[in-house]
């Protein structure tokens, strides 16, 4: 057995167990080690690849750490102004109803500066997919407090911990938009373990299938980590996420086939 593990053998097609997704470009990901953005990009591209819809899929990158998502995804993409992606996705879908349109947004982008665009696109029931990566912090700008930062959680603009009296409460925007009649599928997932990656991929697949079936808006939150912003190692960050983020942002479907399930 041992002597079979040679470079030549590993490279043999029949021995490949993991490889770069076809629709990811060769550009090296700019994310910190362990960051959930890279994994989330990958599974979106796997879904687009498996559905065979590369030529019909248009993505929108946000302002945030994933601002350069268009460098990594091998599809036509637009770069949004901070928070405006749902408005853009609305126009793209209205003008080209046969295309698959998704926005990819962070929590600052989607739940602070872009709250109005998010709520109204969801409430109109636009037939689009919103992928929402919630890491409870402004990763890109260096770890400031986000609308989703947990009570007591430290950030560069809540250095003594988020005080909900003066800084407000974290916003559970996903639960909020699940209440809107326009949303068809609302779910909260994570990508820190292979099992969770599989679940998230299934959810994203379902979201894209919903567009095909013209069902309305699908919203997939991915609770993610930010080792740099949280000032932790990647392993610590995942542990902290499981222990602190998940109790506040519980994983699972919130609305399925337009019915609240939670």
């Amino acid at each position, binding site marked *: 057995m041992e002597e079979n593990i040679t470079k030549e053998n590993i490279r043999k097609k029949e021995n490949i167990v993991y490889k770069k997704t076809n629709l990811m470009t060769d550009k090296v990901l700019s994310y910190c080690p362990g960051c959930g953005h890279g994994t989330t990009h990958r599974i979106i591209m796997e879904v687009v690849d498996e559905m065979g819809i590369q030529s019909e899929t248009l993505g929108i990158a946000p302002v945030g750490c994933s601002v350069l998502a268009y460098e990594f995804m091998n599809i036509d993409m*637009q770069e949004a*102004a901070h928070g*405006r992606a749902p*408005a853009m996705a609305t*126009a*793209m879908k209205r003008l*080209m109803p046969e295309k698959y349109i998704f926005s990819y947004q962070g929590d600052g982008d989607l739940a602070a500066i872009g709250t109005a665009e998010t709520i109204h696109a969801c409430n109109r029931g636009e037939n689009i997919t919103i992928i929402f990566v919630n890491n409870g912090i402004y990763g890109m700008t260096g770890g400031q407090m986000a609308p989703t930062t947990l009570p007591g959680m430290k950030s560069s603009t809540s250095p003594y911990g988020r005080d909900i009296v003066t800084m407000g409460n974290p916003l559970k925007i996903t639960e909020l938009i699940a209440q809107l009649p326009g949303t068809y599928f609302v779910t909260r997932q994570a990508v820190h373990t292979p099992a969770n990656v599989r679940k998230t991929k299934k959810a994203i697949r379902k979201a894209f299938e919903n567009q095909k079936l013209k069902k309305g808006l699908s919203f997939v939150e991915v609770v993610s980590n930010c080792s740099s912003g949280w000032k932790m190692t990647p392993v610590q960050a995942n542990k902290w996420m499981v222990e602190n983020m998940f109790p506040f942002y519980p994983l699972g479907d919130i609305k399925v086939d337009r019915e609240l399930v939670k």
Partner: protein
Amino acid sequence: MRELKLMKGNEAISEAAIRVGCDGYFGYPITPQSEILEYLMVEKPEEISGMIVLQAESELASINMVYAGAACGKRVMTSSSSPGISLMQEGISYMAGAELPSLIVNVVRGGPGLGTIQPSQSDYFQATKGGGHGDYHIIVLAPSSVQEMADFVGLGFDLAFKYRNPAMILSDGAIGQMMEKVEFDEHQPRFTEEEIRKNTPWATVGKTPDRERNIITSLDLDPARQEIHNIKLQAKYRKIEENEVRFEKIACDDAEYIFVAYGTSSRICQKAIQLAREKGIKVGLFRPITLYPFPVKEIKELSKKVKGILSVEMSAGQMIEDIRLAAEGNIKIEHFGKMGGIIHSPAEVVEVLEQKIIGG
């Protein structure tokens, strides 16, 4: 066959949009231009040409809908009035940076702030000098009649696509609200996806195997590349300045004095010319139609021939800065402005000409 109609300036914008094959309108109500959205909702252009009309949740949303539609190679537009246009500046700057063609209509009202709903020309600086952040210009067309409101929709789209740049119709509440006769061309079909793929190969309409993916962005974090991008933008603006200047001259041939005015105030000046000439004052009108690009050469030439220029604006004096720069100090140039939604009377324009230019 041209079709004759009687309608408001605002309605003429909408009717023209349907007829030139506009793909989408996205807007938010604000006086004095809400008729643009209302007319479109009544006419249901989706049933006529497939044109999409959507009332957005804000001007921020509207302009970003326009950004995204333009990025798909679609002929898309929005309209608003001054406070709403201020909100749109972020999106306009992004479109300038990403080089996206689009049409924005500003039916100007008096400011600053919530100001008034009455007509004004106080957004000249904002329109012609960029308006949002960064070094950029948008093409600015200034209609002075309902007919021009209609005609500049097609012209605006054509120029926008020719240069991959946003274009603006800078009108005002008076022209938006007044009714006049207006002639329309027949309906043009909208572009098909095949035509869009051919005409605008940069558009994001889906990556096919025969080409690289298309990316629409205004971002480049590398300063060296960002500088090159800016140099390219500036070269484009110089080309626009060279090729797209439009203006009208009225009674300028024998004129000793010139009014420079656009939009509503240019119409007041036409009446003022009559009154002045009855008194034996030889005055003409130079009306810039493109405010950006500004008719610099033409004003410089005029300034060598006449004795004085009066800039007549419904503002505290904005265009006069461009007139003075163009004239290079050759002659006396004064400003006569009205603010806060007040329109000049022709008689007072003549009076000020006599006092500030002829007598002064």
